[in-house]
């Protein structure tokens, strides 16, 4: 997943600072919140760019940023105008949820999707002794809980709403490692600057 963490951090730092500097000439008197936006956006784009579009989450970061027309300039400067990060397998927006976990239907690896299995389960429960129904109930509660938490995870991983459960976890594994690198880079810059500002 990440063979050379320090090299990765270096790349992210370079890309990020390149993005920050690209803003210096066009905006002279930025408000605090505008600066904060640029700082965060360029860091996110630096991460996505260094990951090089090989992961769904990295493409999703760029896609989501592209939806805001105010970001177009920075995206172009950081990633180039011939942006080939657009994935052909993008699922259209209307299938997405508003983040409350409702989401469109994806194949879940946690829940038995076949209704046949549920019927079989009930039949088996009725046939066997009194303990079986309780075990089934615990198993189904566990499955519901896992499904609920999986839905929640989708909100935290860029592009997560459009992923099946297995891809979601694989993407999450990758995303965590790289997101950590972004945080390390940002922390390093914040610590390197003097505490007092100069105006």
């Amino acid at each position: 997943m990440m063979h050379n963490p320090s090299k990765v951090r270096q790349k992210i730092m370079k890309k990020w600072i390149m993005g920050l500097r690209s803003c210096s000439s066009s905006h002279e008197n930025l408000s605090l919140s505008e600066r904060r936006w640029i700082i965060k956006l360029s860091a996110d784009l630096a991460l996505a760019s260094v990951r090089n579009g090989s992961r769904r989450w990295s493409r999703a970061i760029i896609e989501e940023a592209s939806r805001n027309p105010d970001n177009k300039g920075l995206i172009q400067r950081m990633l180039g105008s011939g942006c080939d990060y657009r994935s052909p397998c993008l699922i259209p927006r209307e299938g997405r949820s508003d983040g409350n976990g409702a989401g469109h239907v994806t194949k879940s690896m946690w829940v038995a999707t076949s209704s046949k299995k549920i019927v079989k389960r009930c039949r088996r429960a009725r046939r066997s002794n009194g303990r079986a129904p309780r075990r089934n109930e615990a198993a189904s509660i566990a499955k519901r809980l896992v499904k609920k938490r999986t839905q929640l995870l989708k909100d935290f991983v860029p592009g997560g709403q459009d992923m099946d459960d297995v891809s979601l976890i694989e993407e999450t594994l990758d995303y965590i490692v790289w997101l950590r690198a972004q945080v390390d880079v940002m922390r390093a810059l914040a610590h390197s600057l003097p505490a007092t500002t100069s105006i």
Partner: protein
Amino acid sequence: MSGRSSGSRAQLGSSRISDDQIIELITRLRQQLPEIHQWRSDKASASKVLQETCNYIRSLHKEVDDISERLSQLLSTIDANSPEASIIRSLIP
């Protein structure tokens, strides 16, 4: 339901995924969590790992926001001629 038999499989589109694969993914996920997001028992239920993963990512996102906030105050200007810019320049090899 897979709780009843060890060989049960859940369907995933055209591919099938085994319980072992699920366990492996969850284990790897758990290994990525820092200690503060872990818990003493070895028993890593899938839902617990997923919950802690969400918490961890949320905390990373928050850190990005906090640092951005702090930097926006430290970088009073992203002007190329500012003292901050020279420090930034020195960070780039």
